[in-house]
């Protein structure tokens, strides 16, 4: 079929009449450069509100608990007794006395491996299951039961199975994080609109092409939802597991501080844990955005 040049049906866009250029006075101000304005907007819109809220809550907390004899420490007490932990996240004063920053990194190392495995296996398993009604009906009750098992309950079993504390910890993270990943991936795969399937049919895409070009991108929002939930659970799991197994992670720090009745240390540790969890969540969300080229919000 020869395609000859097409005469455009619509009228060619006419050039807008050039406005008469006015001669501006010489001392006209140059427009402000973009940066300070943008920084100011970001600050006012995204940073200031949470800062104000947090500061007010701290003030309220201080007010409520500042009288002597309160069972919980006030923010000022926390600062006085454990402020050094906030100010020096990377000190090293002994093999088992290291800054909370180091402890978080130690715990994160295990999370990285465990979660990475869970992501890989979870998406693969979810994609396979999502395509078969029969499989879904078969495994769904099993998954629903297994996913409610708390991570700590898996620990003795995995220790007995692996006879090594290092893979056991990673297994506990893996088995905790994988369920939302599988379940969400399955949902995403099932939710592929019929239209996309039709396109794939018309184009006669093979299994692999369908998987890479349509299934994965279409299910991506669901998959990343699952990954975000999974990373949060993985972080929870390692903190809890360390309370039982020991070591130099942040979970064991909390257990130890509890044993020594150092409540203010625990509060500071909670701060580190919360911030880390937040960062992890945002990281996964960001990766989702990059991978889906902006279609996942």
């Amino acid at each position: 079929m020869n395609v000859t040049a097409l005469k455009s049906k619509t009228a060619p866009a006419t050039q807008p009449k050039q406005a008469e250029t006015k001669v501006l006075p010489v001392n006209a101000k140059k427009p402000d450069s973009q940066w300070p304005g943008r920084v100011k907007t970001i600050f006012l819109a995204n940073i200031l509100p949470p800062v104000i809220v947090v500061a007010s809550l701290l003030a309220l907390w201080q007010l409520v608990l500042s009288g002597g004899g309160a069972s919980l420490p006030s923010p000022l007490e926390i600062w006085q007794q454990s402020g050094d932990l906030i100010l020096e996240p990377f000190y090293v004063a002994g093999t088992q006395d290291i800054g909370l920053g180091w402890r978080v990194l130690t715990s994160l190392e295990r999370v990285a491996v465990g979660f990475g495995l869970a992501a890989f296996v979870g998406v693969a398993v979810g994609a396979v299951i999502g395509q078969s009604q029969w499989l879904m009906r078969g495994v769904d009750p099993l998954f629903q039961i297994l996913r409610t098992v708390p991570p700590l309950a898996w620990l003795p079993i995995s220790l007995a199975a692996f006879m090594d504390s290092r893979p056991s910890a990673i297994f506990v993270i893996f088995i905790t994080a994988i369920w939302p990943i599988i379940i969400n991936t399955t949902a995403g795969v099932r939710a592929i609109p019929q239209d996309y399937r039709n396109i794939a049919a018309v184009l006669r895409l093979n299994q692999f092409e369908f998987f890479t070009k349509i299934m994965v991108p279409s299910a991506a929002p669901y998959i990343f939802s699952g990954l975000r939930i999974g990373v949060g659970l993985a972080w929870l799991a390692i903190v809890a597991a360390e309370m039982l197994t020991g070591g130099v992670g942040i979970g064991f720090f909390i257990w130890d501080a509890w044993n020594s009745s150092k409540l203010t240390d625990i509060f500071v540790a909670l701060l580190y844990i919360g911030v880390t969890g937040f960062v992890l969540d945002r990281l996964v969300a960001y990766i989702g955005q990059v991978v889906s080229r902006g279609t996942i919000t």
Partner: protein
Amino acid sequence: MSYLKIDHVSKSFPLAGGREALVLDDIRLNIDKGEFISVIGHSGCGKSTLLNLIGGLTEVTKGGIILEGREVNAPGPDRAIVFQNHSLLPWLSVYDNVKMGVQKVFGKTKNRAERHDWIMENLDLVQMAHAADKRPGEISGGMKQRVGIARALAMEPKILLLDEPFGALDALTRAHLQDAVMDIHARLKNTMIMITHDVDEAVLLADRIVMMTNGPAATIGEVLEINLDRPRDRIALASHPEYVRNREALLRFLYERHRFVEAAE
């Protein structure tokens, strides 16, 4: 031998409880190459089902569909479909959406530069070349539908199937796109089958209008030949006696002889 022969085709769908619903009954239609066929009928008369059968997305229960002498029973790019919901993949740009089909069909026969040119030509055809790098989320409904048409055309299908492609658009956009389709048909002289609800659209665009009876067990009620010269100007045609007569015939079919009755469950 006709280009596309729909030979005593019936289609039933299985229902729960072992029963069957007969949707289309004994459809017989011959279509020539280069014809523009409109299919019109009330809701539920199986128009989309007929299109899906021709497109191969579903299989006939009885009879056969023969395209250029070979039976059709599977989908393929030779019968490209333009869906009512444009169905553009939102994570790909306009260019990439079209490219997907081109890659598949011409991956081995055209080289990269040729494929690129081909894609841009097809986008040009629907006046969307300027938006090649935009995402579907960034363009209007009408533009999306244009891209859908471009994608289908880029596969150089033997038959272009359009399933109420302009149903979701406003009247003005619809008018523009109808013009675009007529243009394309004039230039490419390809075979097109379009489902529509719109009587004016059917008469304006088609060479023949296939009028379906009501479902269930719908069949072809009548086929109306439209003998209007091309190119067709909608404004001029509005008062053209032949146009008006055809339109009247269509309306009588739909609203007098085959009134739409709510299907009793």
